[in-house]
């Protein structure tokens, strides 16, 4: 706690009194605290050594600059004692950093403490999928977690290497295709929304592959999870109903699953069962608004280069009704 406070103060000083959404200096879990404290240690040591050595260099450059009438300086070839000292001191400094680092490596990579909640995090080009309770809840872009409970994130990939990082929650980890043994776990300590994105080049829209962690109270989280387990609401009004038919006719079901719609079992794109409950879409690139949805549906590859979702050649009416349908999937 005290350490977090000190770190926080130092951080604000360093980061210019600004807490921007993806800053590394806003730790909101014990895992994030731990990594940041270690980083701060290396910053302090590094800056201290750096400033000292630069000062000595500048001093030498000024003090010993050539002046008119200078004679040949003493031809010193070395000094074993001094060289021994200035080798030993760096060894001690790095040994100290290593001494503090090694335990953290092992504790942070130990298996998650029990009880913890497993969330499967699956990277795709160019969005993140989240599965809870053995796939009984499948959602995308926004990972809900309850505050104060340990979450164990299993990192997986459906295509190429991605890297999952929400700076507020702690250090990143790669998601490898074919590997199932990458986990990061942490206990979020504050409610709020914390953004992140992919940190391993994964193709053209690597920069567009974003996500959010939504940390909620236990009650809110439980309500959210329960709602997510429900099948999709049947479309209530005309446009949404027509939209649900367009959804089938235009082939959306080939890639997108909607629980409760038997023909929609596609696993290529995000599960859309509760699409309207999300604040963002398309890999958290866009806000979930009518305007953004219309633009996206018009031409996905134009909005997101390299997008696996093709341009379906939808006309404006088809887009209207699809938007109505998607917005009914609460």
């Amino acid at each position, binding site marked *: 706690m005290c350490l977090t406070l000190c770190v926080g103060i130092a951080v604000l000083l360093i980061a210019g009194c600004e807490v921007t959404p993806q800053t590394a200096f806003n730790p909101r879990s014990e895992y994030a605290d731990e990594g940041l404290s270690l980083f701060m240690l290396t910053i302090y040591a590094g800056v201290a050594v750096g400033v000292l050595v630069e000062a000595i260099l500048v001093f030498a450059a000024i003090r010993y600059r050539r002046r008119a009438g200078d004679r040949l300086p*003493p031809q010193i070839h070395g000094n074993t004692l001094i060289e021994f000292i200035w080798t030993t001191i760096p060894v001690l400094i790095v040994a100290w950093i290593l001494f503090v680092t090694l335990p953290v490596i092992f504790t942070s990579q130990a298996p998650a403490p029990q009880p913890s909640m497993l969330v499967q995090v699956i990277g795709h080009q160019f969005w993140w999928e989240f599965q809870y309770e053995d796939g009984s809840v499948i959602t995308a872009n926004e990972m809900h977690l309850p505050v104060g409970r340990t979450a164990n994130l299993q990192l997986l990939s459906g295509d190429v290497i991605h*890297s999952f990082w929400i700076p507020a929650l702690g250090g990143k980890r790669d998601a490898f295709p074919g590997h199932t043994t990458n986990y990061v776990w942490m206990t979020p300590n504050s409610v709020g929304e914390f953004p992140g994105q992919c940190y391993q080049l994964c193709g053209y829209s690597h920069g567009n592959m974003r996500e959010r962690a939504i940390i909620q109270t236990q009650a809110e989280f439980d309500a959210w999870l329960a709602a997510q387990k429900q099948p999709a609401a049947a479309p209530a009004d005309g446009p949404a109903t027509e939209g649900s038919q367009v959804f089938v006719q235009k082939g959306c079901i080939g890639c997108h699953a909607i629980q409760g719609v038997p023909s929609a079992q596609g696993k290529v794109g995000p599960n859309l069962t509760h699409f309207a409950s999300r604040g963002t879409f398309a890999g958290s690139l866009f806000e979930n608004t009518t305007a953004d949805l219309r633009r996206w549906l018009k031409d996905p590859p134009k909005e997101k280069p390299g997008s696996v979702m093709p341009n379906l050649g939808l006309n404006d009416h088809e887009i209207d009704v699809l938007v109505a349908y998607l917005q009914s999937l609460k």
Partner: protein
Amino acid sequence: MAVVTAPVEHGGMIVAPPTIAAPAYRGLWSWFTTVDHKRIGILYGVSAGTFFVIGGIEALVIRLQLWVPNNTLVTAQTFNSLFTMHALTMIFLAIMPLSAAFFNFIIPLQIGARDVAFPRLNAFSYWAFILGGIMLNVSFLLGGAPDAGWFAYANLTSRQFSPGPGLDFYMLSLQILGVASLAAALNFFVTIVNMRAPGLSFMRMPIFCWMSLVTMVLLLLAFPSITVGLILLMFDRFFGTNFYSVPHGGDPILWQHLFWVFGHPEVYILILPGMGVVSEIIPVFSRKPLFGYAVMVYSGIAIAFLSFGVWAHHMFAVGLGPLADAVFASTTMLIAVPTGVKIFNWIGTMHRGSVSFKTPMLFAVGFIAMFIIGGVTGIMHASPPADLIQHDTYFIVAHIHYVLIGGSIMALFAGIYYWFPKMSGRMLNETLGAWNFWTFFIFFNLTFMPMHWTGLLGMPRRVYTYGPELGVTGLNQLSTIGAIGLGFSVLIFVVNLFLSLRSGDPAPDDPWDGATLEWSIPSPPPVYNFARIPMVHSRDAWWAMKHPERMHLDAIEVTPLAGGPAHATEQAHEVVATTAVSDVPPVIHMPSPSYFPLLAAVGLALMAVGLLVADTAGPSVIPIFAITGLVVLLGSIYGWSFESA
């Protein structure tokens, strides 16, 4: 054959220089057939400079695209090609060949030799390099440049996820460049080991030669790893194997290991020659010998050895497990020590010296200042939990540019200003040099210092755009302005270069009161370098010959605890003023020009072309080009083996 007649002597002194009986070098064609290490050095230098400008333009476009969020200057596809090619160009086509320019021109001169051990192999290295560089860049025009990063992680590089020809250009060009590097490494290794002048023991050798020797060993041991990695990639992309593809039993991690086992020694390949250059310049401009020469040699060797044990610090986010992370964290921290003490030795050289800040020294001291910063952030990445915050963000981009530009490039610029008089016979303009340095220093820091913050505010690497909410817009703009300023600084250098070549002050043999043998011969050197091979009695051989009181008394010296002038156990060494141990031969035989090295390089490149055009011309062209190219390559080697030397 270049026949050189003896200098005319009278009473032990040379009164007329040797003459070249048959004119060896005339016209443009002579540049294609030259085997003279000095000319090859210039070829490397001019080529490296050109590629440096190309890589710089790529960087400028990158920075302009990142001026504001959601910018549309270039597409995402183009942007990915730009950062890939920027890195490949700067690493393989600018820094390495610029170092090679100095290896070529300077090493034989510093060891008192007339050329390298294998002059035609030397020329072959250059031609293979330039053809590889052209092949890589021609990809822009032939279907797309590589766009998966210079590190090209599998399985993004598989045919499935990168269907275009870009990665094929990447793979084949790097193989050709690898051949060029290996040939050069072998050549210079043998040259340094075998062709040193009499009396030039290893511990009397100029420190630049030592750092170069260590670099050659690194090249020889590191390149095979990426060669294997690229061959496996070639097989995956062309012949349906699955080395890097998981569904069939392969693993993308294999590529990462193979790449970084090469990639980490590669960064020391990039910095050690520059450190050697700076280690030459600082003593000369401080009028004192290098402080702790022996330790500088041993630390270079230690760095090379340790560099093969740290590669997985590029993989701390991969999930190799805590034991692997712990081991590589330890070795990485360890390698910081020999790297760091070099900085102290350079400062120790300046200490109590008489330091003149001509342009070479400005760049050398600037190098030390910037390398300190890059080195310090390097230590920050060495701790895995801390690195998981920095990895793949702009914080790393900051680090690499502090060590590569603030480090390697500034050191190599120092070398250019230092050795330009020797290479061209002209002095570079000092005023323009100072302007070059200060604009470079200021704009370099303006570009890359903000990136430490940009990265810690969460901006990833290799993204063509970013969100405005990240709060990094202003920082990106500072970096872009700095990059434009850097371009302006390079322009000043180019102006200096051309003006000085045309009308710079004529350079004396020894404009700086140099310590090493290249300053004992005319500027530019005659084709045979030394009329008579010198006899060496000391480290800093030329200082010793000019000023016997500056002579090192022996290779290993005893220094008193309090510092001060060195003295050793007494050994009677007399410096004989006219040391004519090797008589001037009546005829100096120089290696003959040959077109076979160029032809061999063409053959090598031809072998690759089939794979590059197979998409349009069909797979049958692959063996046609491969065999034709192989025949040309082998025929050329046969030709040059039986050519008269």
